């Protein structure tokens, strides 16, 4: 099960502090993870929502830190890809996996897989026993689709204005957070549906 999928900044943002990250898109799958716990029952739904948002921000911050350290260490100059060069941007993307300890921020230990394309990061938070090889492939696929569908390599702010396209994409490629073993024919079929949705 994937817990959540985020799109957030990995570059410095003027309005925020140095290590902070602006979350542009977040999708949490399934019910609140503290469903059975006693502590959770004491919180009002409003408080639960705030808690969830804060957990997302913690993940975004961690990945932001990891991405900037990774880029600093590799010392490669940033690649400026333009619209149309999505495949190149993806190839040059930094990627990694962060271990999120139990309690920080989710109750159980999770792994945050991330890809950083220019100024944005795409993060998938997976449960520990998940097939991370499949998750990595799914993340790359999702990132490629987001870059293409939302014209992210251009200057616009379509992530915010067209977030429903990401929702539709996720409902097919990652339904309710389920990673799928899709060969190219199955994937093609789902992607055709997603493209048809985006065209409307």
């Amino acid at each position, binding site marked *: 099960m994937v817990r959540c999928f985020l799109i957030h900044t990995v570059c410095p943002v003027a309005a925020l502090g140095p290590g902070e990250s602006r979350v542009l898109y977040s999708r949490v799958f399934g019910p*609140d993870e503290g469903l*059975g716990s006693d502590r959770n029952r004491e919180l009002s739904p409003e408080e639960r929502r*705030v808690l969830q948002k804060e957990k997302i921000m913690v993940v975004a911050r961690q990945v932001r830190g990891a991405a900037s350290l990774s880029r600093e260490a590799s010392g490669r100059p940033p690649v400026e890809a333009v619209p149309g060069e999505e495949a190149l941007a993806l190839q040059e993307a930094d990627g990694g996996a962060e271990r999120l300890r139990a309690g920080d921020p989710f109750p159980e230990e999770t792994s945050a897989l991330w890809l950083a394309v220019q100024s944005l990061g795409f993060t998938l938070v997976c449960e520990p026993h998940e*097939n991370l090889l*499949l998750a990595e*492939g799914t993340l790359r696929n999702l990132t490629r689709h987001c870059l293409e569908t939302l014209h992210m390599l251009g200057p616009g702010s379509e992530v915010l204005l067209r977030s429903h396209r990401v*929702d539709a994409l996720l409902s097919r490629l990652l339904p*309710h957070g389920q990673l799928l*073993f899709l060969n190219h024919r199955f994937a093609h079929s789902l992607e055709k549906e997603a493209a048809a949705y985006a065209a409307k």
Partner: protein
Amino acid sequence: MYSHGSESLINQAREIQEPELQRFHSRLVKLLQGKELGHEAVDSLQRLHIILSATKYTRTLPPELQGSLQSLLASPAEQFQVLSSAVLRETLPLSGQEGNYTQENFIQLNNHAAALVLSQAGSRADLSSLCAQLLRSLESRQSDGPAASLTHTLPILNTVLTHSPDCLTEDHVTLMSKKLVDWLRYASITQGGGAPSGGFFTGTRSRQPVPIAELDGTVSGDFFTVLCVGQSFTEDQWMNVYSFSMLRHWLITYRSVSNGNTTADTANRLQLSLSLSLSHSFSNDDRSEVDGSVVSMVSATSSSSRLLPPKERLREKAFQYCQRLIEQSDRKAHKKTDTDLQKACLVEAVCILDSVCGEDAALVFRAFPCIKALFGRLSSDLSFARVLLPIAQFYLNHGEMAAVDCESVWNLVFGRFPAELFDHQFLAHEFLRFIRLNLESLQLRVPQYSRSFPNLLKFLAWNSPAVVDDFVDLLPSLVTAGTAVELLHTLLDLPCLSATLVLQVRSTCLPISEPGGRGLLSLDAFRSQSFRGLFLFLLRGEAGSGDTIDRLSTLHEMLTETADWPRVVQCAQTVPVLLHIFFNTVIAIADQKLLAHLVQVMLERSSLLLNIPKYNKEIHRVFSRHLLLLCKLHPSLVVDQSHELLEFAGTTANVYSKEEIYTHVVWVLGEYLSGSCDSRCSVMLITSCFETLEAVLFEITSSAPPPGADCPVPRVVTSLMSALAKLASRSHDLIPRVSLFLSKLRTVTRGGPVAWCSDEEDLVAIVTRGEELWSLLKAPGVAQSVLTPPQPVTTPQWHGDTNVAMPLQLRALTNLTHSQ
């Protein structure tokens, strides 16, 4: 990418004023009441979503808007389903409406509405009821029912399982096991119907069922799996994909470890496993009769499985599915995405096999030949490293039972992986996770584990920030009495290892000589024959060939220019933490001899470190702290190592370059060099120590510091004075010498500023301390007990001491006075 536009949108959304928001809401309600909903409605809904999600605090929607949105969930246009679900997820359900959908109509909801209901589920009871509805619909499903609703049943079920596995009753589990068997094993092997492809020449021909194909194009000869392709797919083939995607989780959640409860059971199982390898007849289950003509190695052995109860039958079918996947992964796929999928399928298949073998030990003997063959096929190709990790896990879990030799597996995993794949981020993450989860098992069954730290640390040296957390957990397991000293040296030289790995990677990428460019000194050194040995030592794979190298200073010199490389700097920042963990662990397992050796190493290495800014200072601080702790635990160490400690303390240069360690060395000498700590401590030893320290103190307080050095830190001066006083109090002949020095000091400093102390206040503090010591030493007996108090005095237990505790005293007094 991210621009001012996005930032201003978010700000606008956050700062929207209440009246404007109300107007927007009412406009939207009117819009949604219209007959035809078009682009304007989509845009407005999207903007509403931005407003709601831009802040972490919840905004509530007016009831009528919320009502419109809820009815929009059932809209025929998917865009409105998506948008209304997204918007409603960002707000709270109207009070009294929680659990609105859990009663009757969950199964009729589309995917997006279902996601909303799931996210709003407030309790396990909600999930149970959703679950029950789902399974009821599966059970009573007509074959010509609506196709769309079935595919997402499994992901929803999987979500419920994750949060609350007890939602499913025993009957549910049985039902699902049967369904999963059907979908996994008996999905159609012909391509999906779909419309005829049209065209002039196609007629009845096109309606003949076309068989599915393998990834390399050949016609498939066995049951359908995720690695089979076709032009289009039937519903049960889709269910095959969804079933396999959740299979591992299902098996793990509902595992029942069978340990042969009754003899009848065991006999039955044995008979089954024997017959499975011999018979050829087919299971006469409903679906499989249709496929009667298809034969292959895997399905030929499925004969007697219909005798098994549903859960065990699912296990058996899962086993067969995985074996088929392993077989299929050997084919050469045409597309890269398919090749990647084959690897992911291999990982999943091996993990499932591992899990079912854990449940039913009899399966180990069937599984092992397959796994062993797979290992043989993949072990020489490092691009399959991530597949080899689950295989290693399988060997670790079941190798002993099957009495299989695992040496080649561990040589690969602990030898080649870290040495050649240290820069693969995802592999590093999974590799270290594997070690963490199996720590006890590895320490028990893999003798070379604790010796492989030079290799394992390569992951840390390359990408410290990402993996230091894992090493914080793993390091204690790598500390053994036999290799502790080598490990200490290796940790101190981690930045050098980091630099070496960078050089290694660069030397394979860059040409031998850059035309006209400034060649890197370090790169030249790395490539030259004469220094090869030094670098090879750092790059060694196993411990045991020596603690460290003689020409360490040469190595450091050559790597000087690497001290500002980001990777090296990041690595250097993690070393102090690891050293703390190292020392804390080693104290528990080390004997006196080892501790003495470690003290020597600390003193030696304090000047032998790669010159990275702040690195030296940090390491010195760690050393000081642990020197103190070691000596406190084992005071006799000081007498033991007195020669080395005195050598260090007698070198005046150390006062200026290593004042942190110097202060602590002087302190431990003063504190623990006494007869009460170790009977070997003679008057001669005390005297020679005294003389050494006295000489240094004279030197630093009689002249200006050497050119290039700052004045000695006041703490060094006072420590020296205190140490001398302590030593003198134990050997009273020395008292006059100390007193003389201290009074001279007072006289000198009265005459104005001195060359060796720049700060007025510091000087005053030093002089005050001198005076205190001088007056203390006038009464030698008192001096001794003040400066070196006996043990019971330094660890007072006034509250714990039954004789002196206040409450007891009071109680005694009360008893005495009231009993009369």
